[in-house]
């Protein structure tokens, strides 16, 4: 968590130093001439050669977690576009693999939650496969309630823990 805060702060400093309008993603220094164009108001289409969409913090692919209501393992409507975008990305990048890690809140036994987390991860895996990813690119596991992001006995914590994470291998 601390590392994330530090990197966010650093990125903000970089952005401030560049004194460019904040809309555009931080491009890397070795980008081709395309970057020298005057700032436009329209969002920049991802330059395929320059920035991998997976590293683009404003891309839909930056969304790496899918959340669920209590005791539910079906991907919710609001998360479907992100999952479909990941499926498309995987279908276009055959060398990429991703680990789907299912998690639960604590309101069940440890073993039941292990099963529920697995069902959640498997659900995302299936949707990715239907969207064009290959089975060999996907692995689904469960952490049940064993690795909670938040540990309070309240919905604020529980809602954070009911999720599947998409963990891309680097």
């Amino acid at each position: 968590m601390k590392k994330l805060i530090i990197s966010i702060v650093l990125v903000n400093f970089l952005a401030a130093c560049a004194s460019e309008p904040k809309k555009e993603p931080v491009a890397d220094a070795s980008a081709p001439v395309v970057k020298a164009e005057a700032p436009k108001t329209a969002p920049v289409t991802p330059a395929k050669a320059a920035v991998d969409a997976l590293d683009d913090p404003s891309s839909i692919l930056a969304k790496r977690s899918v959340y669920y209501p209590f005791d539910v393992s079906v991907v919710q409507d609001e998360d479907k576009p992100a999952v479909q975008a990941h499926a498309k990305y995987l279908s276009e990048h055959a060398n990429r693999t991703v680990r789907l890690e299912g998690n639960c809140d604590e309101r069940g036994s440890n073993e039941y939650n292990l099963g529920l987390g697995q069902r959640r991860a498997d659900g995302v895996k299936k949707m990715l496969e239907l969207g064009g990813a290959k089975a060999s690119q996907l692995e689904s596991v469960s952490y049940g309630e064993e690795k909670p992001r938040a540990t309070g006995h309240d919905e604020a914590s529980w809602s954070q823990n009911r999720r599947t994470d998409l963990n891309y291998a680097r």
Partner: protein
Amino acid sequence: MVRRILQGVVGLLLLAQVSMAGAVLSIEIIGAGEHQIPVSIVPFGGDEEIAQSINEVVTGDLRRSGLFRLVDPTGKSPHQPAEVSYPDWEVRGAEALVIGMVAVQDGRIEARFRLLDVVKQTELIGQAVSARENQIRAIGHRIADMIYEKLTGDQGVFSTRIAYVNRQEKKSSLIVADSDGHNEQIVLTQNEPIMSPAWSPDGSQLAYVSFETGHAVVYMQSLYSNRRVVLANFRGSNSAPTWSPDGKQMALVLTRDGSSQIYLSRPDGSDIRRITFSGAIDTEPHFSPDGQYLLFTSDRGGSPQIYRMPVKGGSTERLTFGEGSNFSPQHSPDGKSFVFAHLNKGRFYVAMQDFQTGQMSLLTEGGWEKNPSFAPNGKLILFASEARGRGILATVSSDGRVMQHMFTQSGDAREPVWGPYP
């Protein structure tokens, strides 16, 4: 009045904890048995000279059971029957008296003790217990077991062990300890979770789930050699290991064929056969004492409930109904009932249900009470709970009257399981 007595007891226990080097569980007792047997235990002659007081172990065990009222022997210290004046003890209200002597020779400790009936003025037990010098606590537990059995009619569990997981931030440790928390043995410690410990019927092995490779894998580890083997490492989650009472097979839960389903295997993990085919989450199998049935948790009916099926195949029967969900079933040693965790309106309770009548009763007040397991004499149930914001272990007597809270020194204790008779 009751609260002052309890506070006094807690005070005594806390004092006792400070003076016991190596004690890692501090124990609070809540409640009392229906009729507490008043017994007086005179420290054995020679007890002050040995490294660990036997008296401390015996009185601690009997007090913790909640079934005895310890009568203070102050002013009197008989060690032999000839030194006993029964009226002294009658006037103190004791019904039973324990006296004895301890001798040390060649690295061995021998305790000779007698249990006397104060009212009938007869001897109930006259025994010698001996062991190596570093096994004094075991001597105390054995003596407490004999006293307990003679006075209550039930077998004592003071010489048994428990296993549990201790969690502190990212660190998980699988621990085996005496049932009073002493003699901790760390079976595994790591920065990835550990789950679901289970005892082999002979107490020599623990099976458990570890996430050290990145997903749930079932291991079996010898408590003597610490050697361990992988029992199941298929894709997805491998979990919930449990032995049949005859030790000849195991049940476990795999997701390799889709959702969590129950499989049988040989005790070495070979010859795996699938036995549930529900497509739901079927988990937490537990063998009946005769090895013929399995209790398990399933959400095939829409919510997690307890079901029973014959091990050899046949129809599955749902056992829990009504409001709420139910998890983690465990048979009683006599096979007549089972305990489980009952979740209703956001609270977890330890519950018990009789097979014959189907009647369910709640044994606890409700909170975060999970993972119940029976002591081998069927009189106590060990479970995970919470107090003072920490995960603790707790026991409740099978009639719900006596409860203990057991606090580890640091971290959260969870997923306890009671071991077999040694």
